């Protein structure tokens, strides 16, 4: 009796083992452990880099030529020996004798990462900036000014604090935080859907209804129908959680952190956020639907879900990395590359007031949705909806499971 049980168990185990080993998705299982390691390393590196880049303010120097250069030289000499972050000092203007420099106007103008400005003289420096920046750097400036003035190191010059409400650099940093928050939210929302989309066609295949669908309507329509159904599902989810957030805000959850107003304004930003969410979902969803369409069983879908999640993370990391590099080719690439484009463009909306690039980006993304759906549907028709007798396994990666002609 026991032997019979073991024999039966052996039959089942052998089938399952062979089914897994010879499935085309087994490669992903094999290399699966590499994904967390790789992604962990990437996340650490990119996170640190983004954090560094975003919080890398500069102090502008607007002093006479000799004093300004001496101050920068003192900073460069002492900074390596100082713990913590020491901001970079950059020459804003070499102020000629008898002239003054309008630090307030320069800080409001922006266009660079200057978060505070040193003016005056080495003996009586003036630090202009937001209160938190002035308080943060006042001591350091006194030290550098003393070093530059070659005065007795025990005597530090009095730094005059010239506090202003805000600066272009602070606005830039705050908007970058808003951009990052937008990207994170977008990523979380799209990530939740990936698994659901991936397994979407398995139901039809399991129920054998796929052939009726394929004979009745174009495969593209089937793909689009499924995508939009899931989009609608996700919008219901967003509505529920959005309402919950709204209720919390109304009923005294005062400590909810408020983000800086995005460059395009909140209403446009939210509208763009919605549109980019739809596009991000449609782009990733169509891709995952196409990939999931190739899977024949739930097990294959499960095997595929990890690399798919990792792929989403990669896209997110790329967009985050590009966020900290405005104006570079990396940012442009992240905006042009279809799957990262919605993330990058949402960040762009938080940081830049121009609207027209969003029309271009949305059209570009819509074009890619159409292309992916078309190719996915064709691929599905070619690889899944086929007949023909089983010819045995040609290779472990290419399994002619659907090949049964009558």
């Amino acid at each position, binding site marked *: 009796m026991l032997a019979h049980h073991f024999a039966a168990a052996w039959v089942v185990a052998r089938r399952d083992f062979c089914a897994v080993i010879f499935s085309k998705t087994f490669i992903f299982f094999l290399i699966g452990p590499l994904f967390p390691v790789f992604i962990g390393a990437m996340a650490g590196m990119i996170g640190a880099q983004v954090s560094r880049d975003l919080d890398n303010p500069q102090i502008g120097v607007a002093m006479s030529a000799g004093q300004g250069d001496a101050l920068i030289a003192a900073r460069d000499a002492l900074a390596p020996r100082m713990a913590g972050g020491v901001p970079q000092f950059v020459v804003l203007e070499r102020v000629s004798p008898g002239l003054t420099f309008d630090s307030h106007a320069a800080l409001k103008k922006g266009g660079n990462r200057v978060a505070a400005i040193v003016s005056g003289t080495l003996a009586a420096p003036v630090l202009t900036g937001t209160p938190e920046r002035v308080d943060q750097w006042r001591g350091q400036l006194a030290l550098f000014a003393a070093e530059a003035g070659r005065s007795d190191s025990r005597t530090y010059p009095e730094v005059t604090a010239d506090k202003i409400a805000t600066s272009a650099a602070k606005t830039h940093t705050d908007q970058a935080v808003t951009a990052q928050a937008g990207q994170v939210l977008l990523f979380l929302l799209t990530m939740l859907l990936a698994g659901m989309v991936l397994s979407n066609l398995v*139901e039809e295949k399991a*129920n*054998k*209804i*796929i*052939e*009726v*669908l*394929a*004979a*009745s*309507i*174009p495969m593209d329509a089937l793909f689009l129908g499924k995508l939009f159904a899931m989009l609608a599902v996700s919008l219901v989810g967003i509505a529920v959680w959005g309402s919950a957030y709204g209720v919390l805000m109304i009923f005294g959850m005062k400590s909810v952190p408020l983000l800086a107003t995005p460059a395009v304004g909140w209403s446009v930003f939210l509208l763009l956020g919605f549109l980019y969410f739809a596009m991000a979902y449609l782009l990733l969803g169509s891709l995952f639907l196409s990939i999931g369409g190739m899977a024949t069983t739930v097990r294959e879908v499960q095997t595929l879900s990890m690399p798919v999640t990792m792929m989403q993370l990669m896209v997110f990391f790329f967009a985050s990395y590009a966020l900290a590099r405005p104006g570079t080719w990396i940012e442009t690439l992240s905006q042009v590359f279809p799957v990262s484009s919605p993330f990058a463009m949402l960040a762009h909306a938080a940081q830049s007031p121009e609207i027209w690039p969003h029309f271009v980006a949305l059209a570009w993304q819509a074009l890619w949705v159409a292309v992916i759906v078309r190719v996915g549907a064709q691929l599905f*028709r*070619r690889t899944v*909806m*086929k*007949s*023909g*007798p089983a*010819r045995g396994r*040609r290779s472990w990666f*290419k399994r*002619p499971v659907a*090949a*049964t*002609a*009558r």
Partner: protein
Amino acid sequence: MKIEPFSSFTGMPVLDNTPPSADLAIEARGLVKRFDGFTAVDGVDISVPRGAIYGILGPNGAGKTTTLRMLLGIIDPDSGYRRVLGHERPTEVARRIGYLPEERGLYPAMKATEAIAFLAALRGVPLKEGRRRGRELLEEHGLGYAADRQIRQLSKGMAQQVQLLGTLVHNPDLVVFDEPFSGLDALNQGKLERMIRSLAERGTTVIFSTHVIAHAERLCDQIAIIAGGKVPFAGPVDAARDRLRPQVRLETRAEGGLWRAALPADARHEGKFWYFTLPESGVEPLLRALIEGDAGILSLSIERPGLHDAFVAIAGEAAARALEETPEAPVERKARR
């Protein structure tokens, strides 16, 4: 396009009784489909007249399903052309076609009426109208009590009937069944045969694949015999039978005599009967020779060959054996939960 009048399979001439294109529901020429280097369908020619019951007869793996899928536009042929209801792209006329695949399937959580309405909606019938027609059809076929039951609560046979009704709910001009009798018990097979006949009487073209010769013989006006991805014969069932000469069974009183010289060369003696092919000259000269030779005829019968014999002659012994060995799908009566 000039159509080659010879089958690529046997070199035998294919009967050229093809009606003009306008009278054809389906016209396919030289359809070829390969999968991973294997040729599943190899130059299939089919002409299905409007309003006909047309059978595609062949064993498992012959290429029946692949052919049907190409005709329906589910897959595209690698070469050849097809015209379905006057359109070269079958998907353009999908709303005028009903299709019941061999592997039946519905969404298990759907109610029977909803399932029919869903299938109707796929073919362009508004959902509300589909529900109404679905209820009507279920009532008409004695399944009214199951209208609000989920598919998963129905037996396999009932679920199949629901799908069948869903295939017909939009009153299609062309109905394609892939192995429709597979998995049905004798009672339901009879019901389906009657339904197919009534569809044809209403002018609907019905094309179905089967590996059971008896179904094709009973139902079809025309058939295509398919084996190894090729169609060695396509035409009326009678024409297939006429490929073989009638068989004569003769019983005589006399065992020997001059009359024996009248028997053709293929005559064989089994028990008390002689069996041979009716000579081309007909039965009268044979009878005269037997009488003049004092055969003492006790009985003489002329049997027209059945479709099975014709199939063997056309497709070969191997294909016929494969056809007979094709397993019938099990009939399942228990409810699936």
